[in-house]
């Protein structure tokens, strides 16, 4: 049985196109047009990935996300038609793996689906040769075991946050633009760089002593980010 993707989208046109694209790539695709059906489907037979529209009849997308995630760690890519940046990243803040703003390119969505699946199915980080363990200050990372400790206490990082941290720690004092990070950590050659911004913010909250004045993941003003050991 192939990789199963659940598409939750109430707009029939968009759902149809997305399903066709995913089927063409060889995925087994299921569809749900409302939140309640989505939760039922996802809990009955957890898919490998869920594409989830945020505004749904019956049950709001964020609520669907919470319920599904409470039961199983299914990777989720969110679709949102809201323009407000804070609404857009609300899903990421909850821990979604990625989001795509409408109107979007179905081609781009498919490449994100593949990228998220690659990561969640345990492929090595696209960071090239990385040492088995990394440490800086009170941050210790066991790359092989995907284990992060801050001051001895385990830190719960999502797949992308972990990749981002490992990539930055493996290249200390090197400045990366957001686009570069998006390409080298996420594997996207296009897309919305605010994904990077949100992940950096979340990562700082998890590994920095004082996330407001980070001592490791430093902002290089007007350029990007740099890791300071």
């Amino acid at each position, binding site marked *: 049985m192939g990789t199963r993707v659940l598409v939750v989208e*109430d*707009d029939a*046109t*968009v759902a149809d*196109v*997305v399903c*066709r*694209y995913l089927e*063409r790539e060889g995925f087994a695709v299921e569809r749900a047009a*409302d939140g309640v059906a989505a939760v039922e489907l996802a809990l009955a037979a957890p898919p490998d990935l869920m594409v989830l529209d945020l*505004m*749904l*009849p*019956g049950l*709001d997308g964020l609520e669907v996300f919470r319920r599904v995630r409470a039961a199983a760690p299914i990777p989720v890519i969110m679709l949102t*038609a*809201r*323009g*407000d940046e804070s609404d857009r990243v609300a899903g990421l803040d909850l821990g979604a793996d990625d989001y795509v703003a*409408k*109107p*979007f*390119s*179905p*081609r781009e969505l498919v490449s994100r689906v593949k990228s998220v699946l690659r990561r969640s199915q345990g492929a090595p980080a696209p960071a090239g040769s990385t040492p088995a363990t990394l440490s800086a200050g009170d941050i210790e990372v066991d790359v092989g075991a995907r284990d992060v400790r801050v001051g001895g206490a385990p830190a719960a990082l999502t797949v992308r946050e972990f990749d981002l941290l490992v990539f930055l720690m493996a290249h200390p004092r090197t400045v990366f633009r957001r686009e570069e990070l998006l390409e080298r950590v996420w594997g996207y050659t296009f897309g919305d760089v605010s994904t990077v911004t949100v992940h950096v913010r979340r990562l700082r909250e998890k590994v920095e002593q004082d996330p407001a004045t980070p001592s490791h993941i430093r902002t290089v003003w007007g350029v990007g980010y740099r890791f300071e050991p």
Partner: protein
Amino acid sequence: MRPRSFWIVLVAGALVVAGLSWAVGMTLADALRMAGIAGGASLAVFVLGSAALFALRRRSIMTQATGVALTTIAATAAASVAAADAMFLSVHDLRMLFVILAAAGTVGLLGAIILGRRVAGASRSLAEATRRIGEGEVAMPGAPTSTAERSSPAEFAHLADELAAMSVRLQEAHRKERALEASRRELVAWVSHDLRTPLAGIRAMVEALQDGVVSDPATVASYYDTLCVEADRLAGLVDDLFELSVIQAGALNLHLVQASLSELVSDAMATASVFARAKGVRLEGRMCSEGPPLALSTLEMTRVVRNLLQNAIRHTPSDGTVWVETGVEASQAYVAVEDGCGGIPDQDLDRVFDLAFRGTAARTPSGDGGGGLGLAIVRGIVEAHRGEVSVRNEGQGCRFEVRLPMDGTAG
């Protein structure tokens, strides 16, 4: 002192003086002389007291009240002393008079201080109430909050009531402001979401056609059809948005002509019947009474009726009925549309005419183009015609009513 009360006191005082001098058997000449001496001495003190009060005019109410009392007492004392001197009383009697005056003066002054304190207290509590209103607290009219307010003089009590009423009006204005702000935010969210949704469909379909993801002729043809529908939907939304922004900017230009509302309703029903048949909804109606022609913009009023009919048909299940009624009642022409939507929760009834309000959380517009701006547009146009629109639950659904004044001076 008001001129009227001034004259009343003057005349009453003269009468009392005349009456008393007659009663004690004084001659007219004696009475006039004594009154002149006493009045002159009082007047002299009063002039001095007035000058002192003028100097004190910016001091506290208590100081001023004490000043008034002191002036009155001093004037009485001066009059008594002058009169006593004129009557050649014995030195002993004159000294007695001083003792009496000192005692009476002290008591009078104490009374003035107590009175002044009360007035000053009332004024302070009024100032306190004003400060609270300024900080956004609501005072209820006629509900004094402290003892000082309850026992305050009439003018202060009146002022306190005025302040309380003003605070209620202020509160109402704040509430309206917040509601308007919320509906603006909702509109922005609406524009952002509802314009993106058809765009997302168009974008996805075009790319699918480009990439050859759909290739069999039947599907390709249906994609082209859907593209047209989505583009129309987008155009409809842009139209609605334009109309609404014109209404909100107060720039709605009504070309008023004399027209019959019932005829306009009949035309709109004929147009909407196609949509109703497609959905399996019965569209029925009755003209209760033919009113005189009204001054209205046929274009805009047709839009009102069309929006109401579309809204009703959209929310009525197939095999249901939409009932339309038009007529004249209480010097107003009206059109009422009843649907089979199953009713609107009471707390939402007020909001159906708000921008972008939808009964359900699902915000993806159904294929029939329900943009959520239709009823807001209805209200805008009806109000521009000086009419009113209302909604209430009735029977299987709800009843929307538009009422227009018949005095023909719309706009």
